[in-house]
């Protein structure tokens, strides 16, 4: 994966545009993963990814509300589509059709951790006080999400060591 380096934001509008993009990308990525799991009939994991998508979409709405309250109607992003994945987007290569809830939530936790670190780095380096304050709020949100995902993970027992055993694997050639 490409290295994620927090950009320097000229003002709060740029920062909010980036934050909104990150949350939207995270939500859409979970949707893609949920679709993949549904196609492969792993419905439990599809439900987890669908829920994560809804949570990220809600976070996106919250940020949009904050941006609206700050009257930042000229949102503009610093990045292009050719840039690296956002810090909260799941690595598509980490999915497996038989993956367990703990594994799926482990990916979610990793994303929340990365997002928290990303916003903390922005808060630490921003020169604009508004950007610094909003980035700190975002970082705190993401840290709360880490704790919340940890609680969710704790509801599941440890994975069966043979979790990826498939009685009818695709690799058998006729």
């Amino acid at each position: 994966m490409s290295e994620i380096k927090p950009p320097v934001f000229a003002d709060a509008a740029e920062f909010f545009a980036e934050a909104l993009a990150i949350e939207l990308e995270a939500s859409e990525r979970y949707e893609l993963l949920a679709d993949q799991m549904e196609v492969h009939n792993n419905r439990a994991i599809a439900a987890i990814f669908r829920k994560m998508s809804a949570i990220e979409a809600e976070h996106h709405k919250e940020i949009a509300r904050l941006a609206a309250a700050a009257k930042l109607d000229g949102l503009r992003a610093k990045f292009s589509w050719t840039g690296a994945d956002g810090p909260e987007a799941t690595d598509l290569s980490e999915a497996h059709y038989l993956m367990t809830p703990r594994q799926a939530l482990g990916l979610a936790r990793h994303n929340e951790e990365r997002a928290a670190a990303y916003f903390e780095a922005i808060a630490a380096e921003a020169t604009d006080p508004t950007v610094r304050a909003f980035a700190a709020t975002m970082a705190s949100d993401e840290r709360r999400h880490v704790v919340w995902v940890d609680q969710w993970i704790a509801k599941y027992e440890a994975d069966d060591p043979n979790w990826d055993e498939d009685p009818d694997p695709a690799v058998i050639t006729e």
Partner: protein
Amino acid sequence: MNDLSPAAVAFKPADYRSAVKPVWCPGCGDHSVLLATQRALAELQLPPEQVAVVSGIGCSSRLPAYLNTYGFHGVHGRALPVATGLKTARPDLTVLVASGDGDGFSIGGNHFLHACRRNVDLTYIVMDNRIYGMTKGQPSPTTEPDFDTAISPGGTGLSPFHPLVVALASGANFIARAFTGDVGGCTKMIVEAIKTPGFSFVHILSPCVTFRDDQQKAWKKLARGAMVEETDDPERAARRLMTDDGFNVGVLYRGKREPYRPRLTGGDPVEALEAEFAQ
């Protein structure tokens, strides 16, 4: 990354996705190629109705079904002739071609040579997993000689095909490689390929998680940005390929050949086309 300002961006990556859900295995690199293609089209702000994606047969060739552009899921190995016909008849369209190492280098190998030579303005994306996935794991032209499969015990013992060498020798105007572990990198290569006139070849390392479960982790370690600048000199590009281990990603070569364009197109009067055929 995405710009959410509606005023600034008319098309977002999600606008290029169809309602058909991909059946690729979760973890398959082809998911990343789909996402990268969407992002590339959004980066270039190409209206979906101005884009056509043509494919052959195989896992990778399912790509057109998942995009909200025009698409043609063709015959095994024959995506390039179909795309060549489409682009020459409708030069106004942006035409992408999706293929895999089996479809593109074996069944369609001959078409690959001549598409490079003809230099029609196409972007040819080949998802290489070094195996036939859809037909359950037979060795392909890029499979390593010692890769053990049920139908080739101990490996085929055959030297693998080197797609970039063939593309350069055959006259492709743009040659690049990407790895699906880096969606942004894949996006960038597809954007550059579309922007460069003529035949553009993007070789994408796209691991198969089912029949080549050795690839995903290993390729994440091996794939790295090429340490050299792109060149427009075929001799320099050829020298670089002599030491290429197959995991250098980035633009290798961007030539200056004029793309082939027919004198007449589908937009010309029928009488003019008939007159040309009558000559």
